[in-house]
């Protein structure tokens, strides 16, 4: 089986700070990481390879330094890594990104036909969950999103059975290979990199493809030109000027504070008074 995993390098958003005065993003020193959601897909791809054999190729589109993300994937056991990098991609929205990645997957398939493409559920920076579905549509692959488990895969009969999280339950779906899967977070636990893996990753020559090498004939379909959506403005959430009614009382014991709060809640908010009355009935009913 040939499995392609799309991984994105993202800024570690837990470390992003906004400048309190200028409202601009302070990017300096923010470490870049592999999008955490993509790691569940990488692990699942490696498990499938362990089960049925084959090859795992990791694919990333991004600036040259995104090579680090691919090296990381190699250290866990991916076989090949391709970085699609070109100035022409700057400003791509999800439609343009999925166009470029789909084109690269097609290119990868020339070497060895691709049976499965994995994407993360979503990214933590773009956070759209659209690139996966976008790639699937462009490559005319069956799309299985929010997969929590792969029950069976049969490379000979070209079939796969998965469990997919729906809103109110779990669907068990069978589909034809090739297909595109996005894994649900928490569905597996990423393995540790082996010594040999780390060693291989350090020396691994990550392939770099510009837009031509990625098979993109028409540069107007990527980057700003290929993006229907445009960011009009970026702004900070409006600070609420109305501060909380701070409850204090003379003695200030917890009991007094609690009583004062409850009195305010029930006298100033009639709806809450009714609700808090009902709540007790429920408790006695339990």
């Amino acid at each position: 089986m040939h499995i392609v995993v799309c991984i994105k390098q993202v800024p570690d958003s837990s470390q992003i700070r906004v400048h309190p005065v200028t409202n601009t993003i302070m990017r300096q020193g923010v470490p870049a990481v592999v999008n955490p959601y993509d790691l569940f897909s990488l692990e699942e791809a490696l498990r499938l390879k362990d089960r049925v054999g084959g090859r795992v190729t990791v694919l990333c589109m991004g600036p040259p330094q995104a090579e680090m993300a691919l090296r990381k994937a190699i250290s866990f056991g991916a076989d090949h890594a391709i970085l699609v990098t070109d100035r022409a991609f700057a400003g791509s929205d999800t439609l343009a990104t999925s166009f470029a990645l789909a084109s690269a997957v097609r290119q990868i398939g020339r070497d060895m036909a691709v049976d499965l493409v994995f994407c993360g559920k979503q990214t933590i920076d773009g956070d759209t969950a659209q690139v996966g579905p976008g790639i699937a549509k462009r490559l005319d692959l069956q799309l299985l999103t929010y997969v929590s488990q792969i029950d069976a895969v049969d490379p000979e009969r070209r079939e796969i059975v998965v469990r997919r999280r729906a809103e109110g339950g779990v669907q068990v779906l069978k589909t034809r290979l090739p297909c595109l899967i996005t894994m649900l977070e928490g569905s597996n636990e990423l393995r540790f990199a082996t010594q040999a893996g780390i060693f291989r990753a350090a020396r691994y020559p990550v392939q770099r493809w510009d837009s031509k090498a990625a098979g993109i004939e028409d540069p107007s379909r990527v980057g700003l030109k290929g993006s229907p959506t445009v960011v009009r403005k970026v702004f900070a959430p409006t600070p609420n000027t109305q501060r909380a009614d701070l409850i204090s009382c003379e003695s200030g014991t917890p009991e007094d504070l609690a009583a004062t709060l409850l009195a305010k809640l029930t006298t100033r908010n009639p709806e809450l008074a009714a609700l808090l009355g009902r709540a007790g009935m429920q408790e006695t009913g339990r």
Partner: protein
Amino acid sequence: MNTPAARRPAGRKLELDPRLAAYQGVWVFVEHERGQAHPVSWELMGEGRKLADQLGVPLAGVVLGAPGEPTRQFCQLAFRYGADRCYLIEDPALADYRNQPFTQGLTELVNAYQPEILLLGATTLGRDLAGSVATTLQTGLTADCTELTIDPENRSLAASRPTFGGSLLCTIVTLNYRPQMATVRPRVMDMAPYEATRGGEIVEHPLRLVETDILTKVLDYIPDNRQDRPQLAFADIIVAGGRGLKQPENFELVWELARVLGAEVGASRPVVQAGWVDPERQVGQSGRTVRPKLYIAAGISGAVQHRVGMEGADVIVAINSDANAPIFDFATYGIVGNALQILPALTGACRQHLALTQRAG
């Protein structure tokens, strides 16, 4: 690279191609599963009504499902929640959600009847479908919007959403492509008012796809055991705890107050990550959005990523030992104090209050 805000707001023209000006009307995709409409559909209907009125165009619901009364019933509901019209595809292949037939059906409807705006819920179904339809139609899609407005100058949809880990918002427009698509998470918008006597026109359309052409088959469906899963989104009262509770044992104080109030329990992200509570209880940008009548936050600082998930609550009570905690900037009532003492006191006071009201009632 698809980080929206990483992009220069280029000086591109905003005039619409005349070919695209033919696209008119606002559509809301009516999501349903196992005979139940997802409430996000009616929240979107309320929002869609406002946009349609502002544009002076009709509002339509879109219903795809198996042939029969249950599916048609969703059209009636759509009218009662404000739709003027409903586009309906009934086909056995649409009995369960599958990407291929739903994408085909919705794409065909759009091409046939040309709406200018198409809204879907940012649910597992809605996100799966929206991404596929937008790519097939080659149009723009803005995910997880928190605010939708019409630009009065050029009638385009201005969709705002959090960016950069939620610390900032950005407004996104779709230029020279139609329809303009957006998804909105459940509980972000207000529910549309229900009018039992409202009706509308149903426009039927065939699905040009037969079962043998659909490559994905549903082998089974295992419904969630409702009792097992927390129902935060529709709880009237939520008691939530954060890192300020310090020890996992202390979280029991939150559970106790919740039990007395018949409330659901929520939590901030650090508490979930530390494994004190189930991830389904996380409130905020990467958790649930909630809209209770009362939200009690104990030991929660009120970081913007938490705030976006709960600021729709009618009344917010904050208990925090730091008078400068950001949560006091948007809470309704605040107690500056130690949650480990205030929570049990509040539990006691509520128990007493309830005993009294019950005796009185």
